[in-house]
Protein backbone atom coordinates (compact mmCIF):
# COMPACT_ATOMS: atom_id res chain seq x y z
CA UNK A 1 0.00 0.00 0.00
CA UNK A 2 1.35 3.38 -1.01
CA UNK A 3 1.53 6.19 1.52
CA UNK A 4 0.16 8.74 -0.94
CA UNK A 5 -1.99 8.09 -4.00
CA UNK A 6 -3.18 11.05 -6.02
CA UNK A 7 -5.28 10.69 -9.16
CA UNK A 8 -6.89 13.24 -11.49
CA UNK A 9 -6.33 16.12 -9.06
CA UNK A 10 -7.67 19.48 -10.22
CA UNK A 11 -7.32 22.71 -8.27
CA UNK A 12 -8.84 25.84 -9.74
CA UNK A 13 -8.58 29.28 -8.15
CA UNK A 14 -10.94 32.04 -9.16
CA UNK A 15 -9.22 35.39 -9.28
CA UNK A 16 -11.75 38.02 -10.21
CA UNK A 17 -13.26 36.89 -13.52
CA UNK A 18 -10.45 34.58 -14.58
CA UNK A 19 -9.87 31.04 -13.45
CA UNK A 20 -6.39 29.77 -12.73
CA UNK A 21 -5.63 26.10 -13.03
CA UNK A 22 -3.15 25.67 -10.19
CA UNK A 23 -3.16 21.89 -10.58
CA UNK A 24 -4.26 19.96 -13.67
CA UNK A 25 -4.85 16.21 -13.73
CA UNK A 26 -2.08 15.51 -11.26
CA UNK A 27 -1.39 11.87 -10.49
CA UNK A 28 1.28 10.84 -8.00
CA UNK A 29 2.16 7.76 -6.02
CA UNK A 30 4.55 7.95 -3.11
CA UNK A 31 5.66 4.94 -1.10
CA UNK A 32 6.33 5.13 2.62
CA UNK A 33 9.90 6.21 3.41
CA UNK A 34 10.53 7.96 0.09
CA UNK A 35 12.47 11.23 -0.26
CA UNK A 36 10.96 13.52 -2.88
CA UNK A 37 11.91 16.94 -4.04
CA UNK A 38 9.38 19.07 -5.92
CA UNK A 39 10.89 21.70 -8.19
CA UNK A 40 9.64 24.13 -10.76
CA UNK A 41 9.27 27.84 -11.46
CA UNK A 42 7.14 30.12 -9.32
CA UNK A 43 3.44 29.62 -9.92
CA UNK A 44 3.91 26.11 -11.24
CA UNK A 45 1.71 24.66 -8.46
CA UNK A 46 4.39 23.26 -6.13
CA UNK A 47 3.05 24.92 -3.01
CA UNK A 48 -0.55 24.16 -3.95
CA UNK A 49 0.40 20.51 -4.29
CA UNK A 50 2.10 20.59 -0.90
CA UNK A 51 -0.91 22.29 0.77
CA UNK A 52 -3.15 19.68 -0.78
CA UNK A 53 -0.95 16.82 0.44
CA UNK A 54 -0.99 18.44 3.89
CA UNK A 55 -4.81 18.66 3.90
CA UNK A 56 -4.66 22.43 4.21
CA UNK A 57 -6.45 22.69 0.87
CA UNK A 58 -9.05 20.60 -0.93
CA UNK A 59 -8.93 19.68 -4.63
CA UNK A 60 -11.82 20.63 -6.90
CA UNK A 61 -11.70 17.16 -8.39
CA UNK A 62 -9.73 13.96 -8.08
CA UNK A 63 -8.92 11.53 -5.29
CA UNK A 64 -6.35 11.55 -2.55
CA UNK A 65 -5.66 8.44 -0.53
CA UNK A 66 -3.34 8.80 2.45
CA UNK A 67 -2.28 5.47 3.93
CA UNK A 68 -5.08 3.83 1.95
CA UNK A 69 -7.75 6.13 3.30
CA UNK A 70 -9.72 8.59 1.15
CA UNK A 71 -9.01 11.85 2.96
CA UNK A 72 -10.83 14.28 0.61
CA UNK A 73 -14.21 13.29 2.00
CA UNK A 74 -13.27 13.86 5.64
CA UNK A 75 -14.85 16.79 7.51
CA UNK A 76 -12.80 19.64 9.00
CA UNK A 77 -12.34 17.99 12.41
CA UNK A 78 -11.28 14.65 10.91
CA UNK A 79 -8.81 16.38 8.60
CA UNK A 80 -7.41 18.29 11.59
CA UNK A 81 -6.91 14.96 13.36
CA UNK A 82 -5.02 13.55 10.34
CA UNK A 83 -2.79 16.64 10.20
CA UNK A 84 -2.15 16.36 13.91
CA UNK A 85 -1.32 12.66 13.97
CA UNK A 86 0.19 11.85 10.55
CA UNK A 87 1.60 15.01 8.96
CA UNK A 88 4.38 17.41 9.94
CA UNK A 89 4.97 20.81 8.35
CA UNK A 90 8.22 22.74 8.00
CA UNK A 91 7.88 26.27 6.61
CA UNK A 92 10.29 28.66 4.96
CA UNK A 93 9.53 31.36 7.56
CA UNK A 94 9.58 28.88 10.46
CA UNK A 95 6.19 30.03 11.83
CA UNK A 96 7.16 29.95 15.46
CA UNK A 97 4.79 31.65 17.91
CA UNK A 98 6.77 34.70 19.01
CA UNK A 99 5.49 34.90 22.59
CA UNK A 100 6.17 31.22 23.35
CA UNK A 101 9.54 29.72 24.29
CA UNK A 102 11.26 27.10 22.11
CA UNK A 103 10.01 24.33 24.38
CA UNK A 104 6.45 25.68 24.30
CA UNK A 105 6.56 25.93 20.51
CA UNK A 106 7.70 22.33 20.25
CA UNK A 107 4.96 21.31 22.70
CA UNK A 108 2.16 22.94 20.64
CA UNK A 109 1.13 19.80 18.67
CA UNK A 110 1.14 17.73 21.87
CA UNK A 111 -1.00 20.35 23.57
CA UNK A 112 -3.45 20.42 20.66
CA UNK A 113 -3.60 16.60 20.81
CA UNK A 114 -4.50 16.77 24.49
CA UNK A 115 -1.38 15.02 25.78
CA UNK A 116 -1.07 15.51 29.57
CA UNK A 117 1.47 18.15 30.66
CA UNK A 118 3.85 15.74 32.40
CA UNK A 119 4.20 13.47 29.36
CA UNK A 120 4.47 16.53 27.13
CA UNK A 121 7.37 17.84 29.16
CA UNK A 122 9.30 14.57 28.89
CA UNK A 123 8.78 14.28 25.14
CA UNK A 124 9.70 17.91 24.48
CA UNK A 125 12.90 17.60 26.54
CA UNK A 126 13.88 14.48 24.61
CA UNK A 127 13.17 16.18 21.26
CA UNK A 128 15.13 19.32 22.18
CA UNK A 129 18.06 17.09 23.20
CA UNK A 130 17.88 15.19 19.90
CA UNK A 131 18.02 18.46 17.96
CA UNK A 132 20.80 19.93 20.10
CA UNK A 133 18.57 22.60 21.57
CA UNK A 134 18.49 21.58 25.24
CA UNK A 135 20.17 24.83 26.34
CA UNK A 136 17.74 26.88 24.26
CA UNK A 137 14.51 25.47 25.72
CA UNK A 138 13.51 28.67 27.53
CA UNK A 139 14.50 31.07 24.75
CA UNK A 140 11.91 32.88 22.72
CA UNK A 141 12.21 32.73 18.89
CA UNK A 142 13.67 36.25 18.67
CA UNK A 143 16.52 35.07 20.92
CA UNK A 144 17.42 32.23 18.53
CA UNK A 145 19.47 32.17 15.32
CA UNK A 146 17.81 31.24 12.03
CA UNK A 147 19.19 27.72 12.10
CA UNK A 148 18.06 27.24 15.68
CA UNK A 149 14.60 28.50 14.78
CA UNK A 150 14.28 26.04 11.92
CA UNK A 151 15.50 23.23 14.18
CA UNK A 152 12.81 24.18 16.72
CA UNK A 153 10.28 24.12 13.88
CA UNK A 154 11.47 20.68 12.74
CA UNK A 155 11.36 19.41 16.32
CA UNK A 156 7.78 20.65 16.45
CA UNK A 157 6.92 19.04 13.09
CA UNK A 158 8.21 15.64 14.22
CA UNK A 159 7.16 15.58 17.89
CA UNK A 160 3.98 13.66 17.01
CA UNK A 161 6.08 11.10 15.01
CA UNK A 162 4.22 11.72 11.73
CA UNK A 163 4.41 9.45 8.71
CA UNK A 164 4.75 12.38 6.32
CA UNK A 165 6.97 15.42 6.61
CA UNK A 166 6.20 18.32 4.25
CA UNK A 167 8.83 21.02 3.90
CA UNK A 168 8.17 24.20 1.89
CA UNK A 169 11.50 25.86 1.05
CA UNK A 170 12.93 24.85 4.44
CA UNK A 171 16.30 26.50 3.71
CA UNK A 172 14.92 29.54 1.87
CA UNK A 173 15.53 31.92 4.75
CA UNK A 174 18.86 30.44 5.85
CA UNK A 175 22.45 31.01 4.82
CA UNK A 176 24.26 28.26 2.95
CA UNK A 177 25.96 26.54 5.87
CA UNK A 178 22.88 26.61 8.09
CA UNK A 179 20.76 25.46 5.15
CA UNK A 180 22.99 22.44 4.65
CA UNK A 181 22.78 21.65 8.34
CA UNK A 182 18.96 21.76 8.22
CA UNK A 183 18.90 19.67 5.05
CA UNK A 184 21.07 16.99 6.72
CA UNK A 185 18.75 17.01 9.70
CA UNK A 186 15.71 16.42 7.46
CA UNK A 187 17.56 13.64 5.62
CA UNK A 188 18.43 11.97 8.92
CA UNK A 189 14.75 11.99 9.80
CA UNK A 190 13.99 10.44 6.37
CA UNK A 191 16.62 7.80 7.03
CA UNK A 192 14.71 7.06 10.24
CA UNK A 193 11.64 6.14 8.17
CA UNK A 194 9.70 9.40 7.72
CA UNK A 195 8.50 10.13 4.18
CA UNK A 196 10.00 13.48 3.22
CA UNK A 197 8.64 15.80 0.55
CA UNK A 198 10.59 19.01 0.00
CA UNK A 199 9.50 21.89 -2.21
CA UNK A 200 12.56 23.86 -3.26
CA UNK A 201 14.01 26.29 -5.74
CA UNK A 202 17.52 25.22 -4.93
CA UNK A 203 18.82 22.74 -7.58
CA UNK A 204 21.54 21.59 -5.15
CA UNK A 205 18.92 20.58 -2.65
CA UNK A 206 16.63 19.09 -5.31
CA UNK A 207 19.39 16.90 -6.58
CA UNK A 208 19.92 15.31 -3.18
CA UNK A 209 16.52 13.57 -3.23
CA UNK A 210 16.21 10.06 -4.60
CA UNK A 211 13.21 11.18 -6.59
CA UNK A 212 12.74 14.56 -8.17
CA UNK A 213 9.45 15.89 -9.49
CA UNK A 214 9.40 18.85 -11.82
CA UNK A 215 6.25 20.92 -12.23
CA UNK A 216 5.15 23.44 -14.83
CA UNK A 217 1.78 25.19 -15.18
CA UNK A 218 0.12 22.93 -12.66
CA UNK A 219 1.25 19.69 -14.24
CA UNK A 220 3.92 17.18 -13.31
CA UNK A 221 6.23 17.26 -16.32
CA UNK A 222 9.05 15.15 -14.97
CA UNK A 223 9.33 12.39 -12.41
CA UNK A 224 12.96 11.48 -12.09
CA UNK A 225 14.39 8.65 -10.01
CA UNK A 226 17.99 9.55 -9.47
CA UNK A 227 21.06 8.54 -7.57
CA UNK A 228 21.26 11.11 -4.86
CA UNK A 229 24.20 13.42 -5.32
CA UNK A 230 26.01 14.67 -2.24
CA UNK A 231 25.95 18.21 -3.47
CA UNK A 232 27.35 19.52 -0.20
CA UNK A 233 30.66 17.66 -0.53
CA UNK A 234 32.31 19.92 -3.08
CA UNK A 235 30.89 23.44 -3.00
Amino acid sequence: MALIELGGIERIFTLGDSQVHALQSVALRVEAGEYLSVMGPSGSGKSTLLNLLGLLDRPNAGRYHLEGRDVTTLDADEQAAVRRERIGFVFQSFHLVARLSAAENVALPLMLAGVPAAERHARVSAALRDFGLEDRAGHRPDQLSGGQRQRVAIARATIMRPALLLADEPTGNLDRATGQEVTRLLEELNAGGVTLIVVTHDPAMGARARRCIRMEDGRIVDDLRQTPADTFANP
Partner: protein
Amino acid sequence: MRAADTLRFATRAATGNPLRTVLMVLAMAIGVAAVVVLTALGDGARRYVVGEFGALGSNLVIVLPGRSETGGINPGSLVTSTPRDLTVEDAEALLRSPRVTRIAPLLVGNSEISAGGRLREVVVVGTSSDMTAVRRLDLAAGRFLPREDLRRATNVAVIGATIQRELFGAEPAVGRLVRLGDRRFRVIGVMAASGQGLGMNTDEQVIIPVASALAMFDTNTLFRILVEARDRSALEAAKADITDIIRNRHAGEEDITLLTQDAVLETFDRILGTLTMAVAGIAAISLAVAGILVMNVMLVSVTQRTAEIGLLKALGAEPRTIRNAFLTEASLLSLAGGLAGVALGQGGAALLRLAWPVLPSWPPDWAVAAGLGTALATGILFGVQPARRAARLDPVQALAKR
Protein backbone atom coordinates in the same frame (compact mmCIF):
# COMPACT_ATOMS: atom_id res chain seq x y z
CA MET B 1 -6.99 20.44 23.61
CA ARG B 2 -7.45 20.24 27.36
CA ALA B 3 -9.39 22.97 29.15
CA ALA B 4 -6.40 23.83 31.36
CA ASP B 5 -4.23 24.20 28.25
CA THR B 6 -6.81 26.40 26.54
CA LEU B 7 -6.86 28.61 29.61
CA ARG B 8 -3.06 28.79 29.78
CA PHE B 9 -2.79 29.46 26.05
CA ALA B 10 -5.38 32.27 26.27
CA THR B 11 -3.64 33.78 29.28
CA ARG B 12 -0.31 33.79 27.47
CA ALA B 13 -1.97 35.36 24.43
CA ALA B 14 -3.53 38.08 26.61
CA THR B 15 -0.31 38.87 28.46
CA GLY B 16 1.66 38.70 25.21
CA ASN B 17 0.36 42.16 24.30
CA PRO B 18 0.27 44.05 27.60
CA LEU B 19 -0.77 47.47 26.28
CA ARG B 20 -3.76 46.11 24.38
CA THR B 21 -4.78 44.02 27.37
CA VAL B 22 -4.42 46.88 29.86
CA LEU B 23 -6.47 49.24 27.68
CA MET B 24 -9.25 46.74 27.26
CA VAL B 25 -9.30 45.81 30.94
CA LEU B 26 -9.39 49.52 31.77
CA ALA B 27 -12.36 50.17 29.48
CA MET B 28 -14.25 47.29 31.06
CA ALA B 29 -13.17 48.35 34.56
CA ILE B 30 -14.44 51.91 34.08
CA GLY B 31 -17.84 50.58 32.99
CA VAL B 32 -18.15 48.29 35.99
CA ALA B 33 -16.80 50.96 38.35
CA ALA B 34 -19.43 53.39 37.02
CA VAL B 35 -22.18 50.91 37.83
CA VAL B 36 -20.78 50.27 41.30
CA VAL B 37 -20.20 53.93 42.23
CA LEU B 38 -23.49 55.25 40.83
CA THR B 39 -25.56 52.55 42.51
CA ALA B 40 -23.63 53.18 45.73
CA LEU B 41 -24.64 56.83 45.46
CA GLY B 42 -28.27 55.99 44.64
CA ASP B 43 -28.55 53.41 47.37
CA GLY B 44 -26.80 55.78 49.77
CA ALA B 45 -29.47 58.39 49.07
CA ARG B 46 -32.17 55.78 49.62
CA ARG B 47 -30.68 54.69 52.93
CA TYR B 48 -30.26 58.29 54.00
CA VAL B 49 -33.93 59.11 53.35
CA VAL B 50 -35.15 55.89 54.94
CA GLY B 51 -32.92 56.61 57.92
CA GLU B 52 -34.27 60.14 58.29
CA PHE B 53 -37.84 58.85 58.25
CA GLY B 54 -36.93 56.19 60.75
CA ALA B 55 -35.65 58.92 63.06
CA LEU B 56 -39.09 60.52 63.01
CA GLY B 57 -40.40 57.50 64.85
CA SER B 58 -41.15 54.44 62.86
CA ASN B 59 -43.61 53.14 65.47
CA LEU B 60 -45.86 56.14 64.97
CA VAL B 61 -49.54 55.82 64.03
CA ILE B 62 -51.32 58.93 62.83
CA VAL B 63 -55.10 59.05 63.43
CA LEU B 64 -57.14 61.22 61.05
CA PRO B 65 -60.83 61.95 61.41
CA GLY B 66 -62.95 60.66 58.53
CA ARG B 67 -62.67 57.56 56.45
CA SER B 68 -60.47 58.28 53.45
CA GLU B 69 -60.98 56.28 50.32
CA THR B 70 -57.73 55.68 48.52
CA GLY B 71 -59.61 55.13 45.28
CA GLY B 72 -60.81 58.73 45.17
CA ILE B 73 -64.45 59.78 45.27
CA ASN B 74 -66.96 57.04 44.62
CA PRO B 75 -70.67 56.71 45.36
CA GLY B 76 -69.85 54.88 48.62
CA SER B 77 -67.84 57.73 50.00
CA LEU B 78 -70.66 60.15 49.30
CA VAL B 79 -73.19 58.06 51.15
CA THR B 80 -71.10 57.83 54.32
CA SER B 81 -72.23 60.26 56.95
CA THR B 82 -70.02 63.14 58.02
CA PRO B 83 -67.47 61.86 60.50
CA ARG B 84 -67.89 62.45 64.16
CA ASP B 85 -65.54 64.79 65.89
CA LEU B 86 -62.24 63.36 66.94
CA THR B 87 -62.11 64.71 70.46
CA VAL B 88 -59.55 65.07 73.20
CA GLU B 89 -61.47 62.37 75.07
CA ASP B 90 -61.00 60.03 72.11
CA ALA B 91 -57.28 60.73 72.27
CA GLU B 92 -57.11 59.99 75.99
CA ALA B 93 -59.13 56.81 75.53
CA LEU B 94 -56.43 55.43 73.22
CA LEU B 95 -54.06 55.20 76.17
CA ARG B 96 -56.22 52.33 77.44
CA SER B 97 -54.60 50.03 74.87
CA PRO B 98 -51.59 48.28 76.40
CA ARG B 99 -49.81 48.63 73.05
CA VAL B 100 -49.97 52.40 73.09
CA THR B 101 -47.30 54.17 75.13
CA ARG B 102 -47.90 57.83 74.34
CA ILE B 103 -50.37 60.01 72.52
CA ALA B 104 -50.22 63.58 71.32
CA PRO B 105 -53.40 65.27 70.10
CA LEU B 106 -52.82 67.76 67.35
CA LEU B 107 -54.78 70.81 66.29
CA VAL B 108 -53.40 73.20 63.71
CA GLY B 109 -54.59 76.64 62.78
CA ASN B 110 -53.41 80.05 61.68
CA SER B 111 -53.29 83.11 63.86
CA GLU B 112 -51.32 86.28 64.47
CA ILE B 113 -48.68 86.63 67.11
CA SER B 114 -47.51 89.95 68.47
CA ALA B 115 -45.00 91.04 71.05
CA GLY B 116 -43.26 94.33 71.65
CA GLY B 117 -45.11 95.97 68.78
CA ARG B 118 -44.10 93.35 66.25
CA LEU B 119 -46.72 91.24 64.54
CA ARG B 120 -46.65 88.26 62.25
CA GLU B 121 -48.72 85.39 60.93
CA VAL B 122 -47.97 82.01 62.56
CA VAL B 123 -49.07 78.43 62.53
CA VAL B 124 -50.55 77.61 65.92
CA VAL B 125 -50.25 74.00 67.02
CA GLY B 126 -52.29 72.74 69.93
CA THR B 127 -50.91 69.61 71.52
CA SER B 128 -49.78 68.04 74.79
CA SER B 129 -46.58 67.43 76.74
CA ASP B 130 -45.82 64.11 75.06
CA MET B 131 -45.39 65.74 71.65
CA THR B 132 -41.62 66.15 72.12
CA ALA B 133 -41.22 62.48 72.91
CA VAL B 134 -43.47 61.27 70.08
CA ARG B 135 -41.90 63.47 67.40
CA ARG B 136 -38.35 63.43 68.81
CA LEU B 137 -38.20 67.21 69.10
CA ASP B 138 -35.61 69.16 71.08
CA LEU B 139 -35.84 72.45 72.97
CA ALA B 140 -33.29 75.24 72.73
CA ALA B 141 -34.41 77.05 75.88
CA GLY B 142 -36.94 76.77 78.70
CA ARG B 143 -39.27 73.79 78.85
CA PHE B 144 -42.07 72.23 76.85
CA LEU B 145 -45.78 72.20 77.70
CA PRO B 146 -46.43 70.96 81.27
CA ARG B 147 -47.95 67.55 81.89
CA GLU B 148 -51.53 68.36 82.90
CA ASP B 149 -55.14 67.58 82.18
CA LEU B 150 -55.75 67.79 78.43
CA ARG B 151 -58.92 69.80 79.04
CA ARG B 152 -57.09 72.52 80.90
CA ALA B 153 -56.43 75.63 78.81
CA THR B 154 -53.27 77.07 80.33
CA ASN B 155 -51.99 80.21 78.65
CA VAL B 156 -48.43 79.08 77.98
CA ALA B 157 -46.65 78.80 74.63
CA VAL B 158 -43.53 77.27 73.17
CA ILE B 159 -42.26 79.18 70.14
CA GLY B 160 -40.17 78.14 67.17
CA ALA B 161 -36.65 79.35 66.53
CA THR B 162 -37.62 81.69 63.67
CA ILE B 163 -40.43 83.28 65.73
CA GLN B 164 -38.01 83.85 68.61
CA ARG B 165 -35.56 85.58 66.29
CA GLU B 166 -38.14 87.74 64.54
CA LEU B 167 -40.02 88.84 67.66
CA PHE B 168 -37.27 89.06 70.23
CA GLY B 169 -34.03 89.09 68.24
CA ALA B 170 -31.13 88.19 70.47
CA GLU B 171 -33.06 88.72 73.70
CA PRO B 172 -34.25 85.68 75.64
CA ALA B 173 -37.89 84.91 74.96
CA VAL B 174 -38.63 82.65 77.91
CA GLY B 175 -40.83 84.41 80.46
CA ARG B 176 -42.04 87.08 78.04
CA LEU B 177 -45.69 87.59 77.16
CA VAL B 178 -47.02 87.31 73.62
CA ARG B 179 -50.45 87.96 72.18
CA LEU B 180 -51.96 85.18 70.13
CA GLY B 181 -55.20 86.22 68.52
CA ASP B 182 -57.04 87.88 71.41
CA ARG B 183 -55.34 86.01 74.25
CA ARG B 184 -52.09 86.55 76.06
CA PHE B 185 -49.66 83.69 76.50
CA ARG B 186 -46.48 83.38 78.49
CA VAL B 187 -43.52 81.94 76.57
CA ILE B 188 -42.12 79.01 78.52
CA GLY B 189 -39.79 77.48 75.92
CA VAL B 190 -38.12 77.82 72.53
CA MET B 191 -37.82 74.91 70.11
CA ALA B 192 -34.42 73.99 68.74
CA ALA B 193 -33.96 74.95 65.10
CA SER B 194 -34.92 71.85 63.12
CA GLY B 195 -33.09 72.96 59.99
CA GLN B 196 -33.56 71.13 56.73
CA GLY B 197 -35.28 68.10 58.17
CA LEU B 198 -37.74 66.01 56.25
CA GLY B 199 -40.34 66.19 59.02
CA MET B 200 -42.64 69.04 59.96
CA ASN B 201 -40.75 72.29 60.36
CA THR B 202 -41.23 73.57 63.92
CA ASP B 203 -39.23 76.76 63.33
CA GLU B 204 -42.26 78.89 62.42
CA GLN B 205 -44.77 77.35 64.79
CA VAL B 206 -46.19 78.35 68.15
CA ILE B 207 -47.12 75.39 70.32
CA ILE B 208 -49.82 75.79 72.97
CA PRO B 209 -51.87 73.32 75.08
CA VAL B 210 -54.53 71.57 73.02
CA ALA B 211 -57.42 72.89 75.17
CA SER B 212 -56.25 76.48 74.59
CA ALA B 213 -56.12 75.85 70.85
CA LEU B 214 -59.60 74.27 70.81
CA ALA B 215 -60.94 77.36 72.56
CA MET B 216 -59.02 79.76 70.31
CA PHE B 217 -60.35 78.15 67.12
CA ASP B 218 -63.73 77.41 68.71
CA THR B 219 -63.88 73.78 67.68
CA ASN B 220 -64.26 70.34 69.23
CA THR B 221 -62.49 68.20 66.70
CA LEU B 222 -58.79 67.46 66.54
CA PHE B 223 -56.77 67.65 63.36
CA ARG B 224 -54.76 64.50 64.14
CA ILE B 225 -53.85 62.23 66.99
CA LEU B 226 -50.26 61.01 67.00
CA VAL B 227 -50.01 57.62 68.68
CA GLU B 228 -46.77 55.95 69.62
CA ALA B 229 -46.93 52.15 69.69
CA ARG B 230 -44.81 50.18 72.14
CA ASP B 231 -42.50 49.06 69.33
CA ARG B 232 -42.52 48.36 65.64
CA SER B 233 -43.78 44.81 65.96
CA ALA B 234 -46.77 46.05 67.99
CA LEU B 235 -47.74 48.49 65.25
CA GLU B 236 -50.43 46.31 63.62
CA ALA B 237 -51.95 45.31 66.96
CA ALA B 238 -51.92 48.93 68.09
CA LYS B 239 -53.76 49.93 64.91
CA ALA B 240 -56.42 47.29 65.58
CA ASP B 241 -56.79 48.54 69.18
CA ILE B 242 -57.13 52.16 68.02
CA THR B 243 -59.81 51.21 65.51
CA ASP B 244 -61.73 49.24 68.19
CA ILE B 245 -61.54 51.97 70.80
CA ILE B 246 -62.68 54.72 68.43
CA ARG B 247 -65.45 52.55 66.94
CA ASN B 248 -66.83 51.89 70.43
CA ARG B 249 -66.77 55.58 71.21
CA HIS B 250 -68.33 56.57 67.86
CA ALA B 251 -71.43 54.36 68.09
CA GLY B 252 -69.94 51.52 66.07
CA GLU B 253 -68.93 53.66 63.15
CA GLU B 254 -65.47 53.32 61.71
CA ASP B 255 -64.88 56.94 60.80
CA ILE B 256 -61.15 57.36 61.18
CA THR B 257 -58.12 56.74 59.01
CA LEU B 258 -54.82 55.38 60.29
CA LEU B 259 -51.51 56.24 58.68
CA THR B 260 -48.13 54.79 59.55
CA GLN B 261 -44.66 55.98 58.70
CA ASP B 262 -44.14 52.59 57.07
CA ALA B 263 -46.45 53.43 54.20
CA VAL B 264 -44.61 56.69 53.49
CA LEU B 265 -41.27 55.02 54.03
CA GLU B 266 -42.15 52.22 51.64
CA THR B 267 -43.07 54.70 48.93
CA PHE B 268 -39.79 56.57 49.27
CA ASP B 269 -37.91 53.31 49.44
CA ARG B 270 -39.53 52.19 46.21
CA ILE B 271 -39.03 55.48 44.38
CA LEU B 272 -35.35 55.74 45.32
CA GLY B 273 -34.81 52.04 44.66
CA THR B 274 -36.18 52.53 41.14
CA LEU B 275 -33.96 55.57 40.74
CA THR B 276 -30.92 53.51 41.70
CA MET B 277 -31.90 50.89 39.13
CA ALA B 278 -32.28 53.57 36.46
CA VAL B 279 -28.86 55.00 37.28
CA ALA B 280 -27.40 51.49 37.14
CA GLY B 281 -29.02 51.04 33.72
CA ILE B 282 -27.44 54.22 32.43
CA ALA B 283 -24.06 53.12 33.76
CA ALA B 284 -24.56 49.75 32.08
CA ILE B 285 -24.53 51.52 28.71
CA SER B 286 -20.84 52.20 29.24
CA LEU B 287 -20.47 48.45 29.74
CA ALA B 288 -22.07 47.82 26.37
CA VAL B 289 -19.59 50.26 24.87
CA ALA B 290 -16.80 48.36 26.59
CA GLY B 291 -18.23 45.17 25.10
CA ILE B 292 -18.00 46.62 21.59
CA LEU B 293 -14.42 47.59 22.39
CA VAL B 294 -13.76 43.98 23.36
CA MET B 295 -15.05 42.91 19.96
CA ASN B 296 -12.93 45.50 18.18
CA VAL B 297 -9.78 44.54 20.04
CA MET B 298 -10.41 40.84 19.52
CA LEU B 299 -10.98 41.38 15.79
CA VAL B 300 -7.68 43.26 15.58
CA SER B 301 -6.10 40.46 17.56
CA VAL B 302 -7.41 37.87 15.09
CA THR B 303 -6.00 39.90 12.21
CA GLN B 304 -2.65 40.34 13.92
CA ARG B 305 -2.42 36.67 14.75
CA THR B 306 -3.66 35.32 11.41
CA ALA B 307 -0.36 33.54 10.74
CA GLU B 308 -0.46 31.96 14.19
CA ILE B 309 -4.02 30.74 13.58
CA GLY B 310 -2.89 29.26 10.24
CA LEU B 311 -0.02 27.52 12.01
CA LEU B 312 -2.30 26.09 14.69
CA LYS B 313 -4.56 24.74 11.95
CA ALA B 314 -1.57 23.19 10.16
CA LEU B 315 -0.55 21.58 13.46
CA GLY B 316 -3.99 19.98 13.63
CA ALA B 317 -6.07 22.39 15.69
CA GLU B 318 -9.77 21.87 15.10
CA PRO B 319 -11.90 24.95 14.38
CA ARG B 320 -13.51 24.42 17.78
CA THR B 321 -10.14 24.60 19.53
CA ILE B 322 -9.30 27.94 17.94
CA ARG B 323 -12.75 29.33 18.67
CA ASN B 324 -12.47 28.30 22.31
CA ALA B 325 -9.01 29.82 22.65
CA PHE B 326 -10.18 33.22 21.44
CA LEU B 327 -13.41 33.08 23.38
CA THR B 328 -11.49 32.18 26.53
CA GLU B 329 -9.18 35.12 25.95
CA ALA B 330 -12.13 37.52 25.59
CA SER B 331 -13.72 36.09 28.73
CA LEU B 332 -10.49 36.40 30.70
CA LEU B 333 -10.08 40.02 29.68
CA SER B 334 -13.69 40.77 30.60
CA LEU B 335 -13.34 39.00 33.92
CA ALA B 336 -10.13 40.88 34.72
CA GLY B 337 -11.84 44.13 33.70
CA GLY B 338 -14.88 43.29 35.80
CA LEU B 339 -12.86 42.47 38.89
CA ALA B 340 -10.69 45.56 38.47
CA GLY B 341 -13.90 47.57 38.02
CA VAL B 342 -15.39 46.22 41.25
CA ALA B 343 -12.18 47.12 43.10
CA LEU B 344 -12.18 50.57 41.48
CA GLY B 345 -15.87 51.04 42.24
CA GLN B 346 -15.50 49.98 45.87
CA GLY B 347 -12.61 52.41 46.18
CA GLY B 348 -14.74 55.16 44.64
CA ALA B 349 -17.63 54.38 46.99
CA ALA B 350 -15.21 54.51 49.94
CA LEU B 351 -14.07 57.94 48.77
CA LEU B 352 -17.70 59.07 48.53
CA ARG B 353 -18.34 57.92 52.09
CA LEU B 354 -15.24 59.80 53.17
CA ALA B 355 -16.33 62.97 51.36
CA TRP B 356 -20.00 62.82 52.46
CA PRO B 357 -20.22 60.84 55.67
CA VAL B 358 -24.01 61.47 55.94
CA LEU B 359 -24.60 59.44 52.80
CA PRO B 360 -24.08 55.71 53.47
CA SER B 361 -22.77 55.05 49.93
CA TRP B 362 -22.35 51.29 49.99
CA PRO B 363 -22.86 49.64 46.60
CA PRO B 364 -25.71 47.14 46.83
CA ASP B 365 -24.70 43.50 46.29
CA TRP B 366 -27.04 43.12 43.35
CA ALA B 367 -25.31 46.01 41.56
CA VAL B 368 -21.86 44.49 42.08
CA ALA B 369 -23.11 41.13 40.82
CA ALA B 370 -24.93 42.73 37.89
CA GLY B 371 -21.87 44.81 36.96
CA LEU B 372 -19.62 41.79 36.97
CA GLY B 373 -22.19 39.64 35.19
CA THR B 374 -22.82 42.23 32.49
CA ALA B 375 -19.08 42.69 31.93
CA LEU B 376 -18.59 38.96 31.52
CA ALA B 377 -21.70 38.52 29.38
CA THR B 378 -20.87 41.39 27.00
CA GLY B 379 -17.24 40.24 26.80
CA ILE B 380 -18.27 36.74 25.81
CA LEU B 381 -21.08 37.93 23.56
CA PHE B 382 -18.81 40.30 21.66
CA GLY B 383 -16.00 37.74 21.73
CA VAL B 384 -18.03 35.17 19.81
CA GLN B 385 -17.85 36.92 16.45
CA PRO B 386 -14.03 37.38 16.38
CA ALA B 387 -13.55 33.82 17.68
CA ARG B 388 -15.74 32.43 14.92
CA ARG B 389 -13.89 34.47 12.35
CA ALA B 390 -10.59 33.03 13.62
CA ALA B 391 -11.97 29.50 13.49
CA ARG B 392 -13.16 29.95 9.91
CA LEU B 393 -9.87 31.31 8.53
CA ASP B 394 -8.50 29.44 5.54
CA PRO B 395 -5.21 27.89 6.70
CA VAL B 396 -3.35 28.37 3.41
CA GLN B 397 -4.13 32.08 3.22
CA ALA B 398 -3.56 32.50 6.95
CA LEU B 399 -0.10 30.91 6.71
CA ALA B 400 0.81 33.11 3.77
CA LYS B 401 0.18 36.20 5.86
CA ARG B 402 3.08 37.91 7.56
